[in-house]
């Protein structure tokens, strides 16, 4: 069994504060972390390896500092890691990112499963996973909250997907790409042994020259979208009206009246 996990290093948004004067993000001293959803992806790949044997390879595209995210994945138990780093990759949107990652996956070779997180917490798009699956012409199973069964002999997988109406049970063929939600497992912490290994391991860095890519389809040049403007969301209009009263009963009565009077509840 060979599972490839695509991860992204993101700023830890739990540490992001808003500058109240300017309404901008204060990024100073904000640590970079593995995108939280991707840690569930790593964990699921590790669990499948523990059950079936095989290998887990972690891959990311990003600046050289993203090596620390790959090392953390190795410390968790991943076998191998690869960094895609090249100035030519910079400015990639989800299309160009999925294209580049899929080319790197082709270079890695045979695989049974690709795991991604549901979405990254910086871009919030969730588009790269489906993009990779489409580029590789394999099935995609998104929003997976449970891998119910795997059969490597008959090359089938059964999963539960968290959709709006409930959990959808889907059977598909291998190889396939899975994006996971956080309900799927509880990611492990790195072990001491793992951390030691991650410090010693040499992580290969691949540039555009190492990949069979069309230079017109990578980085900013290959990206169909352009960011025109970044702004802060408008604050919610109005102040919070605190409902006072002598008792909870009275406060509740006033609130109920207001919600009905303003037709918020019909």
């Amino acid at each position, binding site marked *: 069994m060979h599972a490839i996990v695509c991860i992204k290093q993101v*700023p830890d*948004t739990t540490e992001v504060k808003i*500058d109240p004067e300017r309404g901008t*993000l204060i*990024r100073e001293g904000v640590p970079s972390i593995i995108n939280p*959803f991707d840690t569930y992806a790593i964990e699921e790949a590790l669990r499948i390896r523990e059950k079936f044997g095989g290998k887990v390879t972690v891959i990311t595209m990003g*600046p050289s*500092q993203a090596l620390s995210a790959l090392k953390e994945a190795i410390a968790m138990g991943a076998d191998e890691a690869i960094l895609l*780093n090249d*100035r030519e*990759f*910079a400015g990639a949107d*989800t*299309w160009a990112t*999925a294209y580049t990652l899929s080319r790197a996956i082709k270079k890695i070779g045979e695989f049974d499963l690709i795991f991604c997180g549901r*979405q990254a*917490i*910086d871009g*919030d798009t*969730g*588009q790269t*996973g*489906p*993009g990779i699956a*489409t580029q590789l012409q394999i*099935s*995609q199973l*998104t929003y997976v909250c449970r891998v119910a069964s795997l059969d490597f002999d008959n090359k089938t997988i059964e999963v539960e997907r968290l*959709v*709006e*109406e*409930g959990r959808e*049970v*889907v*059977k598909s*063929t291998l190889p396939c790409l899975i994006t996971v939600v*956080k*309900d799927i497992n509880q990611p492990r912490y790195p072990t001491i042994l793992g951390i030691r290994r991650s410090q010693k391991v040499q992580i290969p860095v691949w540039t555009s020259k190492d990949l069979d890519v069309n230079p017109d389809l990578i980085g*900013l*040049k290959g990206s*169909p*979208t*352009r*960011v*025109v403007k*970044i702004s*802060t*969301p408008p604050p919610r209009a109005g102040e*919070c*009206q*605190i409902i006072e009263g002598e008792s*909870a009963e009275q*406060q*509740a009565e006033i*609130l*109920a009246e*207001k*919600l*009905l009077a303003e037709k*918020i509840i019909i």
Partner: protein
Amino acid sequence: MSLLEINREACTGCGACLQVCPFGALSLDSENIAIVSEACTGCGACLPECPVEALSLPEVEKKEQIPTDEYSGVWVWVEQYNHQAGSISWEMMGEGRKLADRRGTTLSACVLGYQAEPIARQAIAYGADRVFLVDDPTLEVYRTDPYARILVELVKKYKPEIFLLGASTRGRDLAGAVATYIYTGLTADCTGLEIEEGTNLLLQICPAFGGNIMATIKCPDNRPQMATVRHHVFEMPVPDESREGQIIRETPVLPEDRIASKVLDLIVEKNEVNLADAKIIVSGGRGLKGPEGFTILHELADVLGGAVGASRAAVDAGWISYAHQVGQTGRTVRPDLYIACGISGAIQHQAGMRTSKVIVAINKDPEAPIFQIADYGIVGDLFTVVPALTRALKRRLNKT
């Protein structure tokens, strides 16, 4: 991997760019000149902030141009489940109609399903001039491959300039595949759509960083300009049954034996909620102190015909299932009324609910951040306030 070019001669070291960089990639060096780190993604947010125009991004050479003027018309994918169209589809029809009128073009709906003709007729009532109907047993339940392949063929054949899909689990699954096949731009979870003066390009406004910033994105050289659109952002249009439109029947692309996936079942648990569709959500957090706390929220939600949500703290504590989680790592909701009970309102929770139309906060702690975004607040013990509110509303809504 930085792309940003800084003209060191021009830079005055004012630091304006440092403040706006969403990635913290800019800083001042020892000579008080801006420098950029590898964290730069080339997003361009800093460019307009520089008062002396010292920042630039490299000009991208024009690739082989696709003839964008051959593309016209606005399209909406009508999502259906169990022979019912999702309300988000009609919201997009309303917005799509406006965009089509602005562009002086037609609005088309793509209806894929089985025995879906009634939905095609509804699409016309909601504003479509034309409906592409693909009616086949292979399309009864949504699956990526057969749906994506049909939409790709339709786009190639009819060349729309704008294509909108709902930012639901299905819409996002599908849009990512279709945009990849076609090689066009796709933005996620848009909360605003505008036509840019002069260029007539679609400006797509979408939240990033858990809603802490808004990005305006366009797709200048590829077509169609694709976006997924957030639920409940655009107004639901009033259907007009007398509207007339054309239904064009198209054929599926993949036969059943070439579709890799099968949907076997849908597991709906008791008390399971469809947060996306709920008009009212009663949500609970750490202040509920345990799983029993959700009982009083369910009682309130039942009176209001609403759904029960939860903060990450309550889900992580195991008090309620993940399907209920609202926030950055859960679902994004935009109900008419969001009642936050015992939720402090961390930034990650706000990311999932701050665009709710009306927010009510019930919390013991008057300093809780939730009050900063709430419209109405009660500072008090939720264990007495919530049941009192349930009783007060029950009486007024004449429910026994």
